[in-house]
């Protein structure tokens, strides 16, 4: 889609201080641009229109934190999966849709708030459910690191399905 057009579209929107297009915003150089902008322009909300938040949202949140901003003042708009991937042959319509999504993202960004965090002291023990070959190995591994492990098995004996096997491939060892 037409990224320059998108930038021109969002620039005059209320509250928008700066809009940039950039290849690979998630790269180091892209990250630095955001960081510098936050510091120099005193930004308090960041909207990134790029790929899925599933992968890079943590990356960007980290940048916000580095720049001294709450990581929750960040909003990601997925114009890759939602626009360029699914509307490959309709460039103009895809751009139009991206505008709407961006507008939604910017609108939401205005209302963003800091989410409080709670500090939890971690209980140094683990529960392993199922004492088959996987459960036993996991339990032993943890136990060997000095962690207290509860190994719970619904049957009367541990070993699981593997105890039923006579030999195991490809080594033909005994199953038990």
């Amino acid at each position, binding site marked *: 889609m037409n990224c320059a057009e998108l930038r021109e579209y969002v620039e005059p929107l209320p509250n928008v201080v700066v809009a940039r297009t950039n290849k690979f915003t998630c790269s180091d150089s892209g990250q630095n641009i955001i960081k510098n902008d936050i510091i120099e322009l005193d930004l308090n909300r960041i909207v990134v229109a790029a790929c899925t938040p599933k992968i890079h949202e943590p990356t960007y949140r980290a940048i916000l934190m580095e720049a001294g901003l709450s990581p929750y003042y960040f909003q990601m708009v997925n114009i890759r999966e939602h626009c360029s991937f699914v509307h490959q042959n309709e460039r103009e319509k895809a751009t139009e849709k991206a505008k709407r999504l961006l507008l939604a993202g910017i609108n939401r960004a205005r209302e963003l708030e800091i989410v409080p965090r709670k500090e939890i002291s971690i209980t140094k023990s*683990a529960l392993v459910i199922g004492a088959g070959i996987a459960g036993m190995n996991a339990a032993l591994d943890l136990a060997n690191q000095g962690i207290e492990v509860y190994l719970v098995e619904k049957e009367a004996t541990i070993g699981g399905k593997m*105890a039923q096997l006579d030999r195991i491939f490809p080594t033909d060892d005994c199953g038990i």
Partner: protein
Amino acid sequence: MVNASKHPNINLLTYSDIINFSGITGEYNVTIRKNTRYVDERKCTGCGLCTTKCPVKVPNEFDRGIGERSAVYIPFPQAVPKLAVIDKEVCINCKNCERACPAEAIAFDQEDEIINIKVGAIIIATGWDEYPIIETNEYKYGIYPDVITQIELERMLSPIGPTGGHVYKISNGKTPQRVAMILCVGSRSLRANPYCSAVCCNVSLKNAQLLKQEYPEMDITIFYIDIRTWDKNNEEYYRNIRAQNVNFVKGKPGDIKLNQDGTMRLYFDMTLEDNVTHMDFDLVVLATGIVPSKGTQKIVDILGLSKGPNGFLSEIHGCLKPVETKDMGIYICGCAAGPKNIPYSVCSALGAASKAATLLSNDILRQELLIAEVDESLCMGCHRCEKTCDFEAINLNENDIAEVDELKCKGCGACVTSCPARAIDLKYYRDIQFEEEIKGICGIEIKLDNTKEEIIN
């Protein structure tokens, strides 16, 4: 097995079920019910004397019903912990065992024990079950006695199994001469499960080899769609067995009929020769697939995890986060997450253990509170949110105002919609945030002074 049971850092709780779960990463509260064995674990020596005195005989589940066990039994000779257990459903209360036990370990008045524990992380390794072929009677399993599964063959091949390592036809007790093995029963099928069960090819190859070693004259035919032996050394293993005079037929048998002489006739399409034909066999062994265990389903319900369309537990990312679930402190491994061979199961178990240990190596965890929030000035105390919440995270305080339990709330938002007074909002996912988003998607711009709204499209 013995290592696991003897390790000082492992509290082994067998014959137990998880019955309740709450809390968040780093601080889970789990309630475990230790089902009664009717045998005192501290006194039982595992001598097995009681089992010889018990008058009840039922099919032995461990040996897949080929052998028998009594109502008081030790699952198998190398069982860990080696303790007797009484199956109350079949027990006739004759108390012979009580009289026989030299350690006075039989305790008919024992009751279920409820144990509450606090843990920082959870690993789920609830394993697999065999494809329930008894329900579908594929290849007349359950109808013709000499149609068995690989696990049943496995038990017969075991020197400690019900037949002492010898293979017999169930119908007449003779050693079979012609054995058919059918792969992909219940797997890679449009009628049953679409997925590959990952281990059946190798299991069949291994058992064919064991049979060949025991009975060199035996005719073994393996019917396959594709032989999938993808892991380290497995292809070599396959080549080796192929060289041992085992017959391989590419094509899945379509029908099975019982002949007058007790043998079974398989009809099949030899796809490599384009030839529809049939052959007679004494024993048919089905390589049944792997399905999620019943325990997995139960754990999904109690822990509130998600599972995929095939019923296996879902990881966050199939490639990069294969042992992690959406709940940060809960990890999955082994066949609970999908069919695996043993090395892969062990790898995933160690992966999960490593992930859990990484989490537990921290002293403090910072948890985002993406949870519901109650506006006390609007709350009417109608209890509706309390009834709606699946996680029992909302309760009314003494002033009849709803209170959210930070540890239990999962931030699902069900209470938000249930509140008639609109007193509940979800942090970071507030109604106002969505309303603004909707306005954006609908193309409505908000002017800076916030007083004028304008249509752009």
